[in-house]
């Protein structure tokens, strides 16, 4: 009897750690893989350049030979533009997420290390950031500085930093109270080594989960700004940008707008599904 119980116990951890993936997560992972593939190999996959005109085939409906998703008002291939838009939108979202995760985590660590007034300032800024609608702040910055791609990525990179800062501060404070951090400190390690080599790997899973939860919001924010004509500027193209221009041809050529809209919705949906699943797997305390 006991043997059975023991065997059962031993067999369990492996199973519990890699359970059969839910179908929704598999589909979501597949979709993200497809998007990444499209983004990495845009030049090879896209049948045409994204600014290539085909004036004889303007507003061709989907299914036209040579233009499987149709063309827009200038005869540009919607499929090709879609592929390049996915690349730009994902690039901005990745860049922004990495910036905000880095900034937030470093600020959280600074707050945890120095405490006192440094901590108060970080927390105050975090409260401020959380209480103002980000879209309005972003629009204000764009109004003052004009628009460029690096500025846009940097601006999006300010989105969500306060969540990483709060999480990393809280976790670093509790890690500092644990034996391993104290032991390394006694061995004479510099603070930067303690935080980045020892504490960071221990709290990484929580931060990664937060990243998957913030990422879809960054995509939505960028597409919203681009839709308003204030984000990515032509001749460059992004998903929101395509929807914005497609809106003019809503009655005659709805496919121009529907294709990128579907890409936005499915991508954010897929990442949210993966994020929720990861959260339940790695860190049920985050809600």
């Amino acid at each position, binding site marked *: 009897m006991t043997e059975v119980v023991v065997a059962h116990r031993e067999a369990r951890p492996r199973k519990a750690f890699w359970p059969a993936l839910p179908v929704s997560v598999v589909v979501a992972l597949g979709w993200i893989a497809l998007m990444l593939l499209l983004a990495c190999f845009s030049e090879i996959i896209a049948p045409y350049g994204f600014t290539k005109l085909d004036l004889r085939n303007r507003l061709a409906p989907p299914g036209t030979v040579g233009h499987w998703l149709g063309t827009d008002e200038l005869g540009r291939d919607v499929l090709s533009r879609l592929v390049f838009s996915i690349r730009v939108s994902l690039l901005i979202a990745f860049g922004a997420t990495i910036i905000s995760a880095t900034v937030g985590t470093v600020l959280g660590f600074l707050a945890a290390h120095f405490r006192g007034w440094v901590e108060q300032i970080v927390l105050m800024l975090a409260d401020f950031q959380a209480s*103002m609608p980000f879209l309005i702040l972003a*629009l204000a910055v764009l109004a003052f500085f004009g628009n460029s791609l690096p500025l846009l990525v940097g601006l999006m990179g300010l989105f969500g930093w306060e969540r990483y800062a709060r999480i990393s501060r809280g976790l670093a404070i509790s890690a500092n109270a644990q034996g391993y951090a104290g032991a390394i400190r006694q061995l004479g390690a510099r603070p930067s080594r303690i935080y980045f080599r020892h504490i960071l790997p221990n709290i990484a899973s929580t931060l990664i989960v937060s990243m998957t939860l913030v990422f879809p919001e960054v995509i939505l924010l960028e597409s919203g700004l681009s839709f308003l004509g204030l984000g990515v500027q032509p001749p460059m193209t992004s998903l929101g940008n395509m929807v914005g221009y497609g809106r003019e041809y*809503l009655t005659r050529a709805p496919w121009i707008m529907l294709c990128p809209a579907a890409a*936005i919705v499915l991508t954010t949906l897929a990442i949210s599904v993966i994020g929720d699943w990861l959260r339940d797997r790695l860190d049920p305390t985050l809600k």
Partner: protein
Amino acid sequence: MLRFLALRIGRALLTIALVVTFAFVVLRLSGDPALLIMGPEAPPEVIAAFRKAWGLDDPIWMQYFDYFGAIAQGELGRSMRDGRPAVELVVERIPATLALTLPALLIKIGIGIPAGIYAALHRGSMIDRAVMLAAVAGFTVPSFVLALLLVLVFAVQLGWLPSGGQDSWRHAILPIFTLGVGGAAVLARFTRSAMLEILGQHYIRTASAKGVPWRAVVTNHALPNAAIPTVTIVGFMVGSLIAGAVVVESVFSWPGVGRLLVVAVANRDLAVVQCILLLVALTMVTSNLIVDFLYGFLDPRLRTRTGSA
């Protein structure tokens, strides 16, 4: 309680100060504010007068305090486009925005909260699953996509409603619906999870164990406690009554504050942008304050805890 409120009011003022600082820093970093606000065509003597009036030749810390003073007196500059005071331009757009956001808020609260409560009480039922599905859709479908889909169906295909403009009440239906539905889904999800968390508490089990009827357990014990996190979200929605319709107003060419903001940003009409930024901060901070007051009513623990501390 008094101490609690004083702390909250202090924080609200601090947030406003931070927004003003943000505007000040960004404005100074972006170039000569005299040229930016008055426009490049302004005659040199006007620029000089402006520089003097705003103290642009003073040391930067003095400028900072003067800036605060000017804003406190409502001196927010003039619009670059027609030279009218920015405050006037913004204020006259507020009713149009509220005509969309207030009914939308009623939809959010009227549908979102009951749906969330029902879903939590009937966990796993068809309605629960439908609410969760709608909540996911409400999060992943951006408002401009929802708006354009509604236009495609109701304006283009069916021809029932106009697709944009502000001529009659029928023009308001689609924008209100766009704003309301997405928000209702989000609110339903929050209410549901708040309720589920409360329903798992010991005092709920204790109440049902001592024989309190389920209906009374829910109305007397679960709902008041679940109201606290829900009020926070509703407060955020109230705070974004002014700024929450930027995208939707643009899609439906509705002449509200949001559309004014987009046009002002595109034209780099800084005085107007700055004015809207402050207005948004003010509404946000005010609604946060109201939420804090409400906490005091909803949660007696908060009153005693901070009162004694």
